[in-house]
């Protein structure tokens, strides 16, 4: 005797949050049943394993049928097949598009291509996240990327509207799209200590300040690419390190301001030129796409690591960067104030975020 067919259809589609999460996590039906049994739902509801299996299968089927719609969340509100209350719809979408920080760190900045997808089994082994779940998350990234790639207007807003995501999640996706588009390198060993949220923060800074959309809000602007003109202008900052007078002047201004206010004054003074060269060189090179990719490595190598070895605190860092930025404006022969502000504003907040004491 065997159950040949077993379905349950409600006028309002019944979806169990817990089972949904298990499904999203890529559990097989049998594994999901095990987890549920361990969770004690059976005792709670006087159910048998059989009942649980039937329910889990049924839910999984429902989710599979819904998945097609979740790929275009706006359709979920418009479709007639499932009657799902709005709050449930929001839950479904949010959870479907949620991702594991562990996973996203593995693919952040990588090209969202078939090749990367093929390597997901390695990612799965490494992170312990099921391959199924990895694929879903990867496909989500790719889908969002594809849709907003060609869209005009603010990136976060586009994502929010097209995928009906809550604000924070939309921002995260914007970061993922932005990183994937600019192919920022995040996987190097030196960057391993950074979390996704660190990068997401930086992405937000870059999107808000360095893209075309950041300067003027015209519709045809794109948020995904860096402002080419700005990158070009960054080359002019080189004068800060090539002109010896300027460099010395800059150093003395910063040193004057910081004297007595920090414990690492000596190290700072000794390293000033190196650090300044590091930052300005990063700026000057950003016009090359290849160097854009190395932006975070460069920041870490050229600035953060030296400071860390000198045991700067975050406060020291903040103090230094503030005065470093401001002092440049006092330099007589330095004319590129606007570019400098735009550049250093982002650099400062990024470094502060990336610098873990």
């Amino acid at each position: 005797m065997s159950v040949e067919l077993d379905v349950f259809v409600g006028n309002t589609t019944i979806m169990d949050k817990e089972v949904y999460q298990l499904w999203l996590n890529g559990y097989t039906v049998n594994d999901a049943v095990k987890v549920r049994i361990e969770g004690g739902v059976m005792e709670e509801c006087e159910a048998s394993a059989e009942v649980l299996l039937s329910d889990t299968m049924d839910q999984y089927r429902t989710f599979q049928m819904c998945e097609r719609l979740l790929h275009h969340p706006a359709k979920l509100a418009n479709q007639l097949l499932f009657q799902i209350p709005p709050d449930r719809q929001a839950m479904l979408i949010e959870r479907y598009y949620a991702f594991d920080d562990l996973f996203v760190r593995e693919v952040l900045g990588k090209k969202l291509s078939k090749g990367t997808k093929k390597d997901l089994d390695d990612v799965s082994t490494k992170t312990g996240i099921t391959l199924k779940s990895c694929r879903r998350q990867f496909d989500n990234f790719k889908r969002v990327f594809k849709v907003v790639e060609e869209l005009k207007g603010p990136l976060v807003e586009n994502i929010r509207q097209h995928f009906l995501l809550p604000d924070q999640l939309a921002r995260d996706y914007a970061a993922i799209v932005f990183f994937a588009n600019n192919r920022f390198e995040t996987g190097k060993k030196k960057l391993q200590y950074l979390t996704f949220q660190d990068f997401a923060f930086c992405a937000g800074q870059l999107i808000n300040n360095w893209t075309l959309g950041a300067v003027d809000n015209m519709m045809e602007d794109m948020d995904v690419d860096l402002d080419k003109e700005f990158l070009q202008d960054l080359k002019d900052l080189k004068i800060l390190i090539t002109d010896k007078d300027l460099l010395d002047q800059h150093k003395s201004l910063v040193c004057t301001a910081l004297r007595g206010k920090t414990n690492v004054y000596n190290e700072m003074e000794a390293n000033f030129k190196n650090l300044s060269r590091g930052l300005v060189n990063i700026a000057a090179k950003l016009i090359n796409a290849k160097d854009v990719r190395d932006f975070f490595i460069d920041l870490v190598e050229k600035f953060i690591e030296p400071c860390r070895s000198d045991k700067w605190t975050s406060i020291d860092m903040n103090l230094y960067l503030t005065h470093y930025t401001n002092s440049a404006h006092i330099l007589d022969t330095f004319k590129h104030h606007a570019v400098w502000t735009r550049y250093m504003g982002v650099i400062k907040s990024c470094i502060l975020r990336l610098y873990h004491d």
Partner: protein
Amino acid sequence: MPGKLKAKIVAGRHLPVMDRASDLTDAFVEVKFGNTTFKTDVYPKSLNPQWNSEWFKFEVDDEDLQDEPLQITVLDHDTYSANDAIGKVYIDIDPLLCSEAATVISGWLPIYDTIHGIRGEINVLVKVDLFNDLNRFRQSSCGVKFFCTTSIPRCYRAIMVHGFVEELVVNEDPEYQWIDRIRTPRASNEARQRLIFLMSGELQRKIGLKVLEMGGNAVVGYLQCFDLEGESGLVVRAIGTACTLEKISTFPATATHPSNSSPSKDMKEPVFGEEAPGVPLSSGPPTPLRAQTFSSFSPSKSYSRQSSSSDTELSLTPKTGMGSGGSAGKDAGPLKALLKQQTQSALEQREYPFFTLTVFPPGFLLHVGGVVSARSVKLLDRIHNPDEPETRDAWWEEIRQEIKSHAKSLGCHAVVGYSESTSICEEVCILSASGTAAILSSRFMQDGPLDTELRFEEVVSPGCGFCHIPYDELNIPFPAQLTYCYCCRRYKVPDVLFTTIDLPTEASVTGKGCLIQARLCRTKKKAQGEVNAMAISNLLPFLEYELHTQLMNKLKLRGMNALFGLRIQISVGETMLLGLASATGVYLTALPSPGGIQIVGKTPSDITYEQHISNMQKKINDTITKNKELYEINPPEVVEEIIGSPIPEPRQRSRLFRSHSESSDDVSEIDLSHGKKDAFVLEIDDTDAVEDIHALLTDSPTPAGFYSCNTEIMPGIQNWTSAIQMFTSVRVFRLNANLTNQGLNKIFSDLCENLLKSLYFKLRSMVPCCLCHLNFTVAIPEDELIQVAVTAVALSFDKVQTLENGKQSGEKTPIKAITENDEQLQFNLELNAETSSSSISPKGLSEVGSHPSARDRCSSWIEQLKLKAHTIRRGSVKTTSSMEKASPLPEGRSRSLRSNRSYSGSSVAVVKMTPLSFIPGAKIIKYLGIINMFFIRETSSLREEGGVSGFLHTFIAEVFAMVRAHVAALGGNAVVSYSMKECVFMENPNKNQAQCLINVSGDAVIFVRESELELTSVQPQSATTQTSNGGEGT
């Protein structure tokens, strides 16, 4: 040319990609009605086409309007090859033909293809202009309202209940025509869908004509069924109850009040003496004594076979009846109360005094006799002439006659809660009919005598009156236990009562009720033709008998004494018969407390054996005690003393009461209740009985927080919240070959039990809740397969108040359902008031009566306001939406902007579905028409669609979606009295194919939350916005 049908195709969305190269579709639409077809332009390269067509106008007879559906086909234009069909929409025009129903159909309807399912949606507008032609009702019956609801619809009042209407039409099944061999499955499915649409339209029209002939304006309890007889054809049949209804909210309550109350005021005055003959107003023939007519059905002959005259068909009619209905015994003698005959004569003039209603206006149902049922086994033959469906008519006629005679033998003149069904396997067909024998008041009957009877009957308090035996004590051919009613102590009541109707709202009930099911499997040998039919008809009586015994045992085990909503389904397969009886058990306060179950061993020599028995006895007793606690059955304990006291003789009554017991069954040779006063004896003499007892005890109780019933409402629970969840669940089991009867029984029983358990688990978030209207359907789709389908609704209720009520009922007072149902029973509260005031019942019932009537009056006002507000809203919505549609967004616009708009603007309106006739916490303010849809779905890529479960899951979801969309297009926000009447599933996994047919029906309505109603009365304007959000509750 009495009608002009106008249709406009506005837009499409979510269309499938038909051109792989461009990933787009060049869609256009064909609109067809009858033989006329219009086409829209091709809207190139879009999945969201904006046709915004002109109005296509069809000038047609109203006869066609009733029969034909509007057929909309969406196609993909192809320059070089034939255009590909995307899918179709059939629109039933019928709701537009009645002035009181919907006025326009407008909205997004799913485009359906029988192979691919739903493929996008189409936005259409449909209107009908009916010309006022005085001579119009010749072939058509426009304007007759149809309701699936088996009670008087909530916003109507019954002026007259005319009686039974039936009709059937037959045709060849396109699936079995020769052309089917050369056409595609799609073409064949569509031919079938269309034919059934046409046939049900025709059927409805013909029934409508009958209603008009009878002078009615509506059909209530409309039940339409299909018999897929395979080679021999396709039968669509329907039954219903013709009524004259009056809309309550169209008149101010004050206006209708006096007009209605006058006849009943007359009743109050004892103008006629009891002996007054009460001459029928209509000049019917004098009523013959019932005795002569059907005396041939003696109990011993109850399953005699009769061969019908035709030699091609074999008629094997086991004349078995269930429960008391089985007592097709000698007819009552001359000792019959005169007054009953008066109403009776009125009813007997009718061919069939049947009513498909299960809930009645107060005062209509006087006494209930018991369940009457009849079955007949027939061999199908090809229907030679579709225009003359005489054979099928004759078959049903035979059965109905039998039912009628059964009712008579119970001393009843009417059958209520009547329904008919079939089960077909190959060429064998079992026809079944069942109902509840009853005595009705003539108050609602046109040809009835003007109520001489009423005033006597109404002396009795409404809480117990219907339990009083209607039959004659002297002529019950079997021993039985009658006692004096435990409520009024004046009339006799049986010890157990079985009925097919809903629990009368006024009934006094102790504690809560519960679902009781009897399940049975019987193997049979494979056979052909007559031999097969004979074998089946030989098995049927035993099947029914065992089902009955099971029901009785389970009822006693729960400490209850009455069954409502009894529905027995017998399904036939090649190698087995399945029987499933479902009912809701309750403890009627008026009936005596049921005795326990006593087990008696046959060979009491062995000590261990005796011990075994006493163990079992203990278990049973424990279960009974536990159940009594669970269902809060604590009847008052005063009983015994009074029983001995002299019985107050009912004043002027000469009728004698005769004992009769529900528990005995004419089919049985052994009379189970014989000689025992309070205990129900189970004799263990073989393994069968042991199994039975075992099965009894293994029925698992419902988990905490859950109640279940198959009736509309659950006694003892009142404070429903607005959370409702309708669902359908289907399971198919594959059996191993060579199972014994007992093995089969166990499997079948487990199947049902597990299904219930699954439902409880699924719905655990709604606790505390009650599964209402649990409707099980069993089928044997092929050898070794059992299919069980359940449709029900889960209603949440508030726990706190329940506890209070529980205490109340526990203490002693039976719950008076009347007060609770005031709101729901809007339709005839005035009557209600009169009933109570005219009754001489002691406790301030009249006070209760007058109070709600005043309340009713003002709520009717509110309703009216509400209705106005609502029409305003609908109007305005229409214009805005059409404006939106009229200006399709230009393609060139910025993409992000466009997507913005289309997404935020249109979220789908919530449509509630429920098998109940009401929505808790809400008031139905308008009935928009009947929904009756038939779909076929087929696949040849079963695995790819997720196997059989995936396939059926999708299909059922699609059917729900289409029902909701059509209701929303009519302007409604709910379907009530929803039912899935057919779910035929066939699979061929080897070929990767499956096919399923589903037939659903219900009443589309507009409801308003009661909380909003209060708002409305203060400020009608604000309610307009409220209504639109009304459905979002669940």
